[in-house]
C-alpha cells in the first residue's frame, strides 16, 4: 500500500523579502538554495528551513492573473489584507501510480500530467487541503 510522508508546505506571501526576513528573525530559519521562479505556476519561491532540511517554501505571485494571486485575492479580509497563508502540502510517496489510482478509485480527483513524477489531489477530494504528491526517489 502506498504511503505518504510529509515533505514541505508552501505559504503564499505578499512581500517575499519581508517574509524571508520574518522567518529568519522570528523562527530562526535559514534560506535554503536560491530564490527560484516557477514558470508553470508563475510565482517566485524561496525555500526556508533549518540546516539542509526544508520546512516550507515562501511563494509570491509574479503576475496578477496567476493561480496563486487569485487564491490570495479570494481570501482577503480585514484581518488578512493580502490573503496570505497556506497554499499546499507536499508529500513524498513511495508509489505515485498506485496512490493516484487509489484516490481515483475512491471518488477523488487527481490532476497529473502524463508520466509526471508529481500529481495534485483536487481539494474537493481532501477536505480542502491542496495536496501535491511527489514520487520518492
Amino acid at each position, binding site marked *: 500500500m502506498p504511503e505518504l510522508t510529509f515533505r514541505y508546505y508552501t505559504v503564499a506571501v505578499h512581500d517575499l523579502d519581508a*517574509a524571508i526576513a*520574518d522567518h529568519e528573525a522570528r523562527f*530562526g530559519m535559514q534560506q535554503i538554495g536560491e530564490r527560484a521562479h516557477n514558470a508553470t505556476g508563475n510565482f517566485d519561491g524561496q525555500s526556508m528551513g533549518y540546516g539542509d532540511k526544508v*520546512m516550507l517554501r515562501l511563494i509570491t505571485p509574479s503576475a496578477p492573473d496567476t493561480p496563486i494571486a487569485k487564491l490570495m485575492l479570494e481570501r482577503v479580509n480585514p484581518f488578512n489584507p493580502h490573503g*496570505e*497563508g*497556506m497554499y499546499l502540502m507536499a508529500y513524498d510517496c513511495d508509489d505515485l501510480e498506485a496512490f493516484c489510482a487509489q484516490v481515483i478509485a475512491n471518488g477523488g480527483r487527481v490532476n497529473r500530467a502524463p508520466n509526471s513524477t508529481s500529481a495534485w489531489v483536487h481539494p474537493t*477530494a481532501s*477536505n480542502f487541503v491542496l495536496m501535491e504528491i511527489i514520487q520518492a526517489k
Partner: protein
Amino acid sequence: MATLTIHHYNTAVHDLDAAVADYESRFGMEQLGPRQLNPVGKFDYISMGYGDSLITRLITPSSEDSPIAKVMKDRASTSNPHGEGMYLICYETDDIDAFCARVEANGGRVNRVPGRSNAWIHPTSTHFVFMEVVERGSSHM
C-alpha cells in the same frame, strides 16, 4: 538555537465520519486512536496516519460557539460550502521559552498560558499560518 520540526497538522471538516472514511479509502491512512473531545477548543478529533506515524488530525466543531466553527464559517465559499481545510500546523521545539522569546523580540505575537509547554503564534506573525508550538517530550500532544 530553538528549531522546529513538524508534528502534525489539523484539518477542519464538516462530517468527521465521512472525512475519516475518505482518508482511509483514498489515502490509505488509518485511525491512530479513538475519537476524542478537546474541551478547550470545543472540537472532536481523530488522528490519522500510517502505522505509528501521525499525519493529520481531522477535527470538527463540537458546538456552534467553537472557534473552529467560526473559522469554517468565515471561509465558506461556493466551492467550499463548509469552509473545510487546514486549521493549524503543530511543531515541536527543544526549547519553548527560547522560541517564544525570539518571536516576541522580533515583533511577533505569542499566546501562551504561563508555565505551559505549548504556545500559539498569532497568524499576523506568521504570514497567516496558524502555528502551535509544543516543547518536545511534553504531554501537550
